[in-house]
């Protein structure tokens, strides 16, 4: 990431879909213990499609702007489609160069979302 990563910086300063969703079907927290990145996602489905996705958290711009950007991308998609997302997709969506050392930051939000719907037992 460089200083010209305007999209990331914009989402970091003005996160979209930020906040608690009290009527969520799924809730999941994910942490990067070594750097203190912290994301909790809230998901509500309409049938098989994701209707609402919100999040709370704190940490670096890659993790926080990342889930903000991702939230806009994932709303309207099916569980199967969401579970198919990987690091390559994340790099395309973020639109910036993500170095290997930022992998965990970049993947934190997606991991939370996929864990939330992949393992529905106990995450509700």
């Amino acid at each position, binding site marked *: *990431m*460089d*200083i010209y*990563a305007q999209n990331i*910086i914009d989402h*970091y*300063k003005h996160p979209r879909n930020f906040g608690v969703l009290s009527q969520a079907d799924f809730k999941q927290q994910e942490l990067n213990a*070594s*750097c*203190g990145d912290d994301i909790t996602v809230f998901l509500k489905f309409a049938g098989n499609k994701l209707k609402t996705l919100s999040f709370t958290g704190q*940490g*670096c*711009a*890659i993790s926080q702007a990342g889930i903000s950007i991702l939230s806009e991308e994932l709303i309207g998609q099916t569980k199967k489609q969401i579970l198919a997302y990987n690091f390559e997709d994340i790099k395309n969506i973020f639109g910036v160069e993500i*170095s290997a*050392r*930022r992998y965990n*930051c970049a993947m934190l939000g997606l991991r939370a979302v996929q864990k939330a719907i992949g393992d529905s037992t106990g995450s509700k």
Partner: protein
Amino acid sequence: MIRRTDFPILNKKIKGQPLVYFDNASTAQKSRPVIEAVSNFYQNDNANVHRGLNPLADEATKKYESVRNLVADFIGAKKEEIIFTSGATAGVNLVARSWGEANLRAGDIVVLSIAEHHANIVPWLQLQKKIGIKLEYIPLEADGSWDLLAAKKLLNKRRVRLLAVSQVSNVLGIINPVAQLTKLAKQKGIVTLIDAAQSVAHLKIDVKKIACDFLVFSGHKLGGPTGIGILYGRQELLLATPPFMGGGDMISFVKSDSFGVSDLPYKFEAGTPNIAGVVGLGAALKYLESVGYNSIHKQEQGLTIYFLQKIKKLKAVKIFGTAKAKLPIFALTINGIHPHDAADILGQAGIILRAGHHCAQPLHDYLGVPATLRASLSFYNTKKEIDYFVSKLAELIKAFK
């Protein structure tokens, strides 16, 4: 004399930008004499030491042992008291596993400071688990220096057996008054271990003046190769300490049912050592002496004052460790910007920094921050580089505002 041109890597460019190497607390860059000494050893002298009765092994052994003498002179010790290790971490572990396991009992107290590097915490936590020793931590003043009153109180506790502290914190850069505590410890019969990993590249070390029992450092932080370090131990203590690893130079004889242990210092050197590393360490020490600690200190104090003056203008920046006795090691946080983002983005501009907890998680918990951004300078850094760093940091703060 300080000559930046002695360090070839400093000519490097990153994405067209000159390299600004501000991660010296992680590892220092290598001067040409060090690079040439290592290369020359492999090209002309390579042989195993203390083993062959041949001229090549003789030469390698001579070079290897001459560095032991050099290190001994360098820190004011005897050559029998200089053990080659793989680094400061290995030194602390050797003391913990050999001296510690032979001398510490359940309920005995080891006093550390809260600013210690993990390498001077975890070996003692391992003994806590294994033997049941207790750990006590010296707290800090607001400026990052030791709370000396609390430290003295801790040393007055009845079952304190060891004081193990760093001379300089790798995060705060504060120079700790170690001799004050070793003196008190000595009066009370408490054994002392000094972690000089962070101080040795900046301060002249004299084990007699520090009056410690053990002292450890790594070669790579003073401009030598990685994988080589020194454990100093007072002869009397090393004699009474059982050997650590078995094999190689530590053996005097082996029978099918017994073995004998070599004399000092070989007693603690098992296996083929890092011979080229030792040769490189020797070259690094000679290089440091040729520059001179007085010049180093003068230059680094100038950089420290300049850095603090410049950074003060950035209101979003908070520096941790502001006591006056300070090396040019600066841990900082920036309001609204995570240290990882700052290190990543400034790295794209050629500025090499470290972000995270710098192997000092208990200190970061104590400071109440998950991570800091660290700029650590050496004598070969310049005021121009500080200007560049501060201007790029100002741009970053503006972009995130």
